[in-house]
């Protein structure tokens, strides 16, 4: 940040004996311009810190405030001190790395030891509140309100608020999780159907926004003296009492009507009845290594995990091998001075590398479309490319070949041109055939030069989410486990577990993330070791 200080011309100060303790020279700044830039940048840092601190102060988030103060102090110390020179260059990147990578990664790893997921989001109290709230039945003789759904702040993330109007008295209320609060009729606007259309401080949701928040809305209720207010659809709400209530004496949920009880199971975070049936709402608990052991011991999970692991390796290694083979072949063929138009070939062959990848994956997906796709029309066939495992894998690898071989072509050309021709010439003088010289001299040298690249390409493709998600989406799916497609790799599977339609299982997804991390890290470290690419860091 404050490193842009000394940019000025060659007006270098004459050699100095010793920098003074204070003043201009003290921190290594040697010119007035540099000092001014430095002061300006540090002032900006201070400005940003104040801007960041104000909302924290208003919200009374003391931990966050302490972090902001500490980081600012650290920055000032590092850039004003004459020592700590390496830190001056490392701190900006390190800060970003810690905040946006290391902290989220550690958090993810910690969720791998919980059952965090759709039915297990919050605390036990949250679960009890949700169970009581959803069991509400209308209290006889209470009004049925006209409802308008709203949020506090952003429509996608803000807290849900019910804006209610009593059709008999025309009074309007704002219902939050704290309770009902009457709205002054002058502040709000009510539509012809009695719905509140505008209220200060609240964002009224349209149908699209409301359906996006359907899940939050279904869990929401406004507590009242006699029970709670629940919505019925998107424009009606009623006041009711919960049928089910928590009883602390038996640590269980009791149903007032049927008398059934569900006892808390604190190791699984669920309320379970005598038959072992659990209520849908649970809470987050630590499950230790269960997510990890499940992956290895659960029959279906293990089967799909192993199947995907094999294809994941096949996909990553296959991609590297075929792109490298074709790239090398084309590089060898075109690497000849007599060949006219080499530049044109090169410029056009590498065009795919410069195209937007996401869009081109989608174009390929649509070229493979059964009904409208170009390939079926050109070939005169009606193949459902993503219908069988083999054809789907073929399609994916073909797309990978198209996207990747031009890159390999570029690096192979570069490497070929840097391998000394003396070696191959010497071999030929000794009577070796060109193919023999290639096999024994050029190719091994090429492999040595490109090994780090091939490893990096493998590591990248091992987690190449877009290549699967945008092309086949994991299809075809086996009937017995519709969560794990036959062309899914671990990372797309993880994504489906965490965000897919069948309910989020963040804990399990995080456990698989940790597996992926370990696999890639171990393979990369081993192979970098073998190729001695890490030696230079000593």
């Amino acid at each position, binding site marked *: 940040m404050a490193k842009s200080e000394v940019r000025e011309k060659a007006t270098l100060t004459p050699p100095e004996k010793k920098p003074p303790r204070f003043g201009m020279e003290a921190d290594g700044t040697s010119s007035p311009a540099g000092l001014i830039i430095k002061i300006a940048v540090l002032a900006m840092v201070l400005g940003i810190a104040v801007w960041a601190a104000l909302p924290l102060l208003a919200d009374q988030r003391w931990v966050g405030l302490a972090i902001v103060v500490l980081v600012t102090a650290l920055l000032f110390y590092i850039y004003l001190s004459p020592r700590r020179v390496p830190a001056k260059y490392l701190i900006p990147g390190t800060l970003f790395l810690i905040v946006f*990578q290391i902290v989220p990664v550690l958090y993810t790893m910690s969720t791998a030891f919980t059952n965090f997921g759709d039915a297990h989001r919050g605390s036990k109290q949250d679960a009890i509140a949700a169970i009581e709230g959803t069991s509400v039945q209308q209290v006889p003789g209470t009004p049925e309100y006209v409802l308008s759904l709203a949020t506090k702040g952003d429509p996608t993330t803000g807290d849900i608020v019910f804006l209610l109007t009593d059709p008999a008295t025309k009074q309007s209320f704002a219902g939050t999780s704290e309770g009902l609060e009457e709205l002054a009729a002058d502040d709000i606007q009510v539509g012809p159907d009695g719905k509140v259309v505008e209220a200060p401080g609240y964002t009224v949701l349209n149908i699209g926004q409301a359906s996006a928040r359907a899940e939050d809305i279904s869990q929401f209720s406004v507590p009242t003296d006699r029970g709670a207010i629940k919505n019925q659809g998107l424009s009606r709400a009623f006041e009711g009492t919960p049928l089910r209530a928590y009883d602390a004496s038996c640590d269980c949920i009791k149903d007032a009507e049927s008398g059934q009880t569900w006892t808390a199971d604190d190791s699984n975070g669920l309320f379970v009845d005598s038959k072992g049936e659990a209520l849908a709402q649970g809470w987050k608990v630590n499950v230790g290594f269960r997510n990890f052991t499940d992956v290895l011991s659960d029959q279906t999970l293990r089967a799909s995990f192993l199947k995907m692991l094999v294809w994941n390796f096949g996909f990553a290694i296959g991609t590297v091998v075929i792109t490298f083979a074709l790239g090398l072949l084309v590089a060898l063929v075109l690497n000849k001075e007599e060949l006219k138009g080499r530049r044109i070939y090169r*410029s056009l062959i590498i065009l795919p590398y410069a195209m937007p990848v996401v*869009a*081109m994956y989608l174009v390929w997906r649509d070229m493979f479309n059964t009904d*409208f796709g170009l390939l079926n029309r050109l070939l005169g066939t009606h193949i459902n490319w993503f219908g069988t495992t083999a054809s789907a894998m073929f399609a994916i690898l073909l797309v990978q070949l198209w996207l990747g071989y031009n890159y390999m072509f570029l690096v192979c050309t*570069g490497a070929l041109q840097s391998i000394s*021709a003396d070696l191959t010439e010497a071999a030929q003088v000794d009577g070796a055939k060109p193919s023999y010289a290639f096999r024994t001299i050029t190719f091994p040298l090429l492999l040595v030069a490109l090994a780090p690249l091939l490893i990096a390409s493998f590591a990248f493709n091992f987690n190449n989410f877009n290549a699967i998600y945008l092309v086949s989406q994991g299809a075809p799916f086996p009937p017995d486990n519709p969560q794990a497609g036959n062309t899914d790799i671990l*990372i797309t599977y993880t994504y489906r577990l965490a965000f897919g339609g069948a309910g989020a299982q963040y804990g399990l997804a995080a456990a698989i993330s940790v597996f992926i991390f370990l696999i890639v890290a171990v393979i990369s470290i081993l192979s970098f070791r073998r190729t001695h690419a890490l030696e230079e860091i000593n």
Partner: protein
Amino acid sequence: MSELIPPSETMEPTPLRPPGEQVDDTPHDVVRLGSSQGGWFRRVGWRHLVGLLALAFSIFPILFVVSAALNPLGTLSSSQLIPTGASFENFTKLFDTSFPRWFLNTMILGIASAAVSLFISACAAYAFSRFRFKGRRFGLLSILLVQMFPQFLAIVALYLMFATITDLWPPIGFNTVWGLLLLYMGGALGVNTWLMKGFFDTIPKDLDESAKVDGATHAQIFFGIILPLVAPILAVTGLLGFIGAVNEFLIASIFLTQDSAKTAAVGLYGLVSQERNNNFGVFAAGTLILAIPTVALFQFLQRYIVGGLTGGAVKG
């Protein structure tokens, strides 16, 4: 023989090479398949044949995109490989969507992300290359290791984190390019830092030493001597950073849900995720426009790219 190649033909950039690669500095022709005697076809003709085949493979999906973009019907089912018409209707339709806004967002994100991460990465590479300090080896190794945990696996954590940030500081929260930019900067210290450190290492330390004797500070050495010398590598790394940010899809699709905040990749995906057949022409037109800046930069920087890539950057 090799002396006959004009410098622009040799694809090798200025002799900045990653360390450990043993090369001599003059480019050479290497492999001779087949004999230099014989007919034209045996000597170079077959090479043209292979070249043309490779070319056809590379070009045909792009040709299809061009053809679909110009196709007046604008549907997937009516798009042929060879353009059947030349209508700009798809482009007009495209500009009726929020595409201009998406494109602008993409360019802001791409340029800012490339520039800032280049700066951060170059600074760190300078420190790793020129200073010896406690924790240097640990730092270099952890940079490599942290990158092995793909950032988007932590998406749940990032989502929760940015939900709080959106509450406290809306200008860097969800649905802003700046929030996404900050997030991408978490990956600024990564493979590129290694790549650049390698190139910094090839610059003789004597240069620094003599400048130091003349009274230059570390900052003057960095900005005045080292950076200008590695300018070609900076250009290539910047280009790769730009491509990476333009193509990032997953995190962007979760963070940018408001139409006006989307990047082109997210927006275009939205166009074909629902109306796959009907919007294909518009989608193809968008793809072409999105490709223009990258393709132009690519052709412009072509001379440097091979050297930059062989250093260890990866894509696709």
